[in-house]
């Protein structure tokens, strides 16, 4: 049953090994002509756009480009995407590139590397422009650590004014976008310039490899720091025509902790001023044609939610039982049904596959641990999952209504999930439609037997006396 999964793992390991064996061209042969970095600090999910113009100055062609990250950032790295632009300005097409972690023996100060494999090796003297997007989570550190209801939330952002790179960078510039114009302080590394919501570091010229200049930006950020500490999404497939999804959330506010008392009166009478860093509702984007939506927790239904149905997407606005302040937690469950024909398809080889979106439907949230459980119908065989990024997968058994042998559950686990992970994955399995009839047949036979017994009882005289 697990053979395809294991095969995949083996293949990926061997690819990884190959990559390691490949003779890497020495770092000095490549230099970055121009680098521009834009750091977006408007929400608690930090997006960094990096544009690198790389030139091969060596003699041999280079097939990969390395990105370097300080060890503190690597742990918070959720997504790294790289693409190369080809064509002229108007007809630019972007081609995504593979990004894999790479170990280098002589990394200074524990620097971690990711290597971008180029489509065509970069010949000597040629240049290419790479665009890299990486997303950092949990990288804004609230300071002060505790705030009261009326205060707004201030955070620290740590980074380097210079782009950490194993290559020589000729010219570089960094823009930091802040959510508001309120910036308490920032480290000055000349030339540093601040205008409106933008902070500009650079341009700096001719920096050697691995140069690093730490900066701290102390800024105001009142966007909801919604972190789902654990999310379990259970997708139950019923071949009778519906897909039932149950999502169990453990939500926390990861911002500055709440201090002192919470005054409900003040909170409700002055919504703009009081509790600005707290959040009272969240938006979940659900697929269209969603039905029978519920929102509840361990102690019952939560009566504060709104559902807007649309042709392209449905929006569910949920409100936790209480507004979430820093450090407060809430757990809840969202469940909904979806029409099966939108998500279940038959592949040419006769297998069926579920095509469903990975990731959390809540907008602008980080999920620390996401578990997706795909509950296949009873009697399905040989499940295999295809996920576009590495996940931890294994199989389980589940017993639901009138199950005898139990349902196979494909479990997919991933840590540190951001909205960029909302891309479809597939689960393939074999299923014989005859199994659909097992449960109705069981029920009818039970009722038939019941009535037969009743009839028999009424016609048989069981008394001892005659």
């Amino acid at each position: 049953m697990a053979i395809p999964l294991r095969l995949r793992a083996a293949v990926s390991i061997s690819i990884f090994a190959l990559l390691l064996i490949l003779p890497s061209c020495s770092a000095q042969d490549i230099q970055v002509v121009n680098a521009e970095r834009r750091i977006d600090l408007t929400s608690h999910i930090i997006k960094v756009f990096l544009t690198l113009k790389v030139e091969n100055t060596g003699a041999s062609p280079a097939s990969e480009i390395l990105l370097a990250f300080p060890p503190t950032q690597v742990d918070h790295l959720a997504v790294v995407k790289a693409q190369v632009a080809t064509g002229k300005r108007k007809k630019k097409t972007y081609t995504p590139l593979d990004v894999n972690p790479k170990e280098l023996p002589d990394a200074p100060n524990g620097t971690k590397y990711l290597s971008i494999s180029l489509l065509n090796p970069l010949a000597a003297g040629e240049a290419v422009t790479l665009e890299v997007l990486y997303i950092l989570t949990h990288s804004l550190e609230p300071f002060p650590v505790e705030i009261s209801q009326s205060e707004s939330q201030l955070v620290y952002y740590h980074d380097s004014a210079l782009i950490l790179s194993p290559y020589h960078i000729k010219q570089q510039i960094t823009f930091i976008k802040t959510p508001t114009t309120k910036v308490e302080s920032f480290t000055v590394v000349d030339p540093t310039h601040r205008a409106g919501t933008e902070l500009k570091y650079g341009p700096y010229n001719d920096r050697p490899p691995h140069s690093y200049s730490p900066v701290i930006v102390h800024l105001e950020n009142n966007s909801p720091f919604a972190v789902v500490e654990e999310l379990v999404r259970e997708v139950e497939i019923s071949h009778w025509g519906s897909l039932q999804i149950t999502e169990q959330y453990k939500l926390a506010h990861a911002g500055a902790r709440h201090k002192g008392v919470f005054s409900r009166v003040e909170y409700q009478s002055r919504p703009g001023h009081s509790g600005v860093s707290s959040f009272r509702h969240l938006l979940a984007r659900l697929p269209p044609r969603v039905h029978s939506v519920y929102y509840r927790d361990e102690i019952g239904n939560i009566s504060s939610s709104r559902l807007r149905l649309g042709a392209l997407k449905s929006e569910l606005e949920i409100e936790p039982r209480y507004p979430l302040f820093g450090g407060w937690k809430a757990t809840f469950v969202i469940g909904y049904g979806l029409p099966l024909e939108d998500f279940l398809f038959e592949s040419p080889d006769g297998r069926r596959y579920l095509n469903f979106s990975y990731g959390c439907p809540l907008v602008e949230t980080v999920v620390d641990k996401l578990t997706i459980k795909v509950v296949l119908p009873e009697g399905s065989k040989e499940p295999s999952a295809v996920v576009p990024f590495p996940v931890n997968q294994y199989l389980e058994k589940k017993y639901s209504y009138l199950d005898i042998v139990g349902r196979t559950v494909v479990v997919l686990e991933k840590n540190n999930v951001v909205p960029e992970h909302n891309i479809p994955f597939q689960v393939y399995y074999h299923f014989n439609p005859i199994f659909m009839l097992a449960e109705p047949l069981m029920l009818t036979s039970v009722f038939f037997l019941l009535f037969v017994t009743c009839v028999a009882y009424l016609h048989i005289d069981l008394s001892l006396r005659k």
Partner: protein
Amino acid sequence: MVGKSEPINGTAKSQPPPSPLSPKSPDLLSGYFSFKSLKLKTKQQELLIRVSILCLVYILAFVTRLFSVLRYESMIHEFDPYFNYRTTLFLTEKGFYEFWNWFDSESWYPLGRIIGGTLYPGLMVTAALLYWGLRFLRFAVHIREVCVLTAPFFASNTTILAYFFGKEIWDTGAGLVAAALIAICPGYISRSVAGSYDNEGVAIFALLLTFYLFVKAVNTGSLSWGLASAFGYFYMVSAWGGYVFIINLVPLYVLVLLITGRYSMRLYVAYNCMYILGMLLAMQIRFVGFQHVQSGEHMAAMGVFFLMQVFYLLDWLKHLLSDTKLFQAFLRMTVTSAVGVGAVALGVGTASGYISPWTGRFYSLLDPTYAKDHIPIIASVSEHQPTAWSSFMFDFQILLFLFPAGLYFCFKRLSDATIFIVMYGLTSMYFAGVMVRLILVATPAVCLISAIAVSATIKNLTLLLRAKTKAPQSASGKGGSSGKAASKGSLDQSQPFQKNGAIALLFGAFYLLSKYVTHCTWVTSEAYSSPSIVLAARGAHGNRVIFDDYREAYFWLRQNTPPDAKVMSWWDYGYQITAMGNRTVIVDNNTWNNTHIATVGRAMSSYEDEAYEIMRSLDVDYVLVVFGGVTGYSSDDINKFLWMVRIGGGVFPVIKEPDYLVNGEYRVDKGAAPKMLNCLM
């Protein structure tokens, strides 16, 4: 439903007599066959109608209790059910032995509570068994759903039981009416809507079961029915403290039978079997323990038991001694000595402390003013107040008028069974008058007796109507075959008047019964289907506004306080905090320790610095108070505050009620007493 069931049944009952009156075929043989098949058919029809009526009543009883689920959600209501739910959850998760030995440190901090030994486990075990049964049948239900629907399920079962009980004491017609009446009677619905997961839900079933089986045992004198009633009693004891009612009513009934000279071997067998076995079984419940032989409330049953033996002995001696004079002398001697020995034993037992005196609640039942003077904690509960007339009307409606009529019919046809139902009805009506919540106990009796009235009246009326159709036939000379021919002579003379009167009365009965149905539905939907933890109101634009503040608070406590935090609140909220908030409370709804509650009452009503000391000594981390001033919610803590003062003052004389009153008036605004303004509340 009620209206429908009756005439059909009446038809079915009186159909066999007319059928032999119309043998059409001259052929004897074929006529015999057609007659036989016809007769079988009517019997089958009658069975079919009866079974389908019962099925409909069964479903109706279940469905009518689902208002709250439809209007709100599938949730547990009120206060006590939350404790029951929590314990059931524990039982299903940890198993029976863990449950039995459970020491709960989350309530009554720092004392704790031995759950296994201080509750009636019947309800939890029932729900857990239902849950395990459904799980075994592969129904993946949640335990909460089982708990929510336990009470309606048992209410449905009670209707079936009411049918059998009615059949036992009167006839099938009365049984059917009783089933229909009890299915929708508000007095019962008030405690058995979906979500009110309380002991009473199953206890009324158990109560009626015990009574039914006991009456059956008395009627048949069969040991097996006696045994069954003992088990019914055991179930009742395991489910609710109201079993005391059974253990006192049954001896009283036996005593009445003895006095009225209805002593029989059947009674002897039934009572002895039920008492001895029931007592032994009841001792298995840890909360009850040896109370059956040690507590004053159970002594009546024991006394009657011994009296029964004396009676038996006398009967035997009377059989031996043929001389009546000698026997009379002997009788006097034996009875005097038996009563004397009993009195001495009781006196010695009470004096030595072996037999405990009556509890406060029991006293307050016999003397309604007792609690008010002596035990404020009992008096503070609204459901322990004496019943107002309006609530009788609210809960019984026409049954209140049918009850005396039913009593009349019962007295007209006195038997062991009707004596029982009369006694049950009268005593429970008295208790219902003393305490609001005991209306529940009276409901089955009221329904049964009213059913007798309805059934007997309608039957008589339909007989009158049918007699008219029979009249021409009787004129043709075939009269005497019917059993009711005796009354026919008198009927014939005033035919038209009686017929019209009967029709009018029938319509009147229909009208009353249909009124009853609408009233019951209205009461159920308006008054008894609110979970009281979620409040709903109509907003300014007619939209529904839901106040879910309780659960908001509890859920906040659950999520955002340290797991070992101690929460102080007034005892009403104790169960809900432990169940929904999952935190330790100081006092809760199991009001077993008056001093502890008084300490909390004192903390609440002291000056803040004094209150701080008290709360430090109790390790309190959080205090939960409810204030409904903003939304206009009246049952908040300010409203309950005077009870805190009274209960606190009952133990700690430092707290004096007059300190909180202004000129004998309770004010909470600016003009309130200074002590009131500066206390913790």
